[in-house]
């Protein structure tokens, strides 16, 4: 069952959307919010799979709401304005719904939502996972398999892949939560590494892609165990 929340200051649209969703299998509305500030405080983002999000709302717009999140969940953008299509694209929205929304158009959109999550499920099974990080003001897709290390700096985090590194304002813990726990391990308070990328282990230092990374004593036994080093 996919769980969603609706953030829209228009009670009429919320009522219609809830009615539409009540007729769709496998999608459940777990919360409705008439402003982004309340949603920000009340939504448990671990409990929802995606959001229906209006753009023009008083106080804080839907786009400002997205910018305030460290991890942007999958979204369906809804708006009375056609002008936000490009924003929907930038935020990798699953769909963009222009109000008012007919039942027929909604059903198409619900189909897109389901297809999106089916694709994510297949990617999970085949191990081809991706994460989105905010880098230079844009949301960038990174293949999890390409990540070598994640390093916490004073004010940001650097994600290193084979050829590139990306700075993002997420916390180390946020990134760790997004990564598959079987493949990644925190080895130091400032470092997360992908275990399969480790080239060498020398006491309390590991080497990945010619870079040395310290391993804290707290993590050393677990590291050796996970790498099956006797």
């Amino acid at each position: 069952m996919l769980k969603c929340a609706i953030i829209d200051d228009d009670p009429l649209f919320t009522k219609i959307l809830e009615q539409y969703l009540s007729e769709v299998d496998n999608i459940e509305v777990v919360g409705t919010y008439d402003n982004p500030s309340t949603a920000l405080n009340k939504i448990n983002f671990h409990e929802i799979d995606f959001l229906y999000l209006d753009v023009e709302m008083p106080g804080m717009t839907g786009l400002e709401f997205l910018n305030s999140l460290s991890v942007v969940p999958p979204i369906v953008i809804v708006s009375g304005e056609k002008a936000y299509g490009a924003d929907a694209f930038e935020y990798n929205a699953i769909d963009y719904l222009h109000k008012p929304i007919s039942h027929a158009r909604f059903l198409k959109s619900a189909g897109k939502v389901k297809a999106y999550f089916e694709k994510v499920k297949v990617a999970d099974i085949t191990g081809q996972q991706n994460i989105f990080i905010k880098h230079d003001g844009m949301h960038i897709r990174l293949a999890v398999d390409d990540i070598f290390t994640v390093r916490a700096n004073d004010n940001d985090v650097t994600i290193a892949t084979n050829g590139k590194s990306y700075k993002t304002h997420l916390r180390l813990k946020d990134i760790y939560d997004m990564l598959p726990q079987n493949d990644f391990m925190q080895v130091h308070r400032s470092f997360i590494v992908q275990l399969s990328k480790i080239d060498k282990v020398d006491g309390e230092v590991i080497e990945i892609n010619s870079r040395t990374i310290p391993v804290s004593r707290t993590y050393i036994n677990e590291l050796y165990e996970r790498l099956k080093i006797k």
Partner: protein
Amino acid sequence: MDILGLKEYLHCDDAFLKSINQKIVEEVKKIKKNIEKAATEENWQTVKLNAHKMLSSVKIFEMNELVSLLEKIEINANSKNNIPGLKKDIENLYIQVEKVIPEMQLASEKLQ
């Protein structure tokens, strides 16, 4: 106002259509009050936001005259370029709203 067209558009039964109709009436009345207050205070940003909000409610009923008027108010309240014209449009909005509300209520009564 084509209530049967709306029923098909929303793919719903009469009970839901009636509740939607009532909701729109409530919203339009509430937003009209908000616009009146904001216009008195010359708070054009609030006028703009409320006009935008009313638009999404009335668009569903294809009230084209009201839609055009609200779009004009939204644009002018945002630009603040023609305040006398804007005030006149807001006065016209009150008249339009008073006209459409009884029509909507009548349509609602006709439903089961």
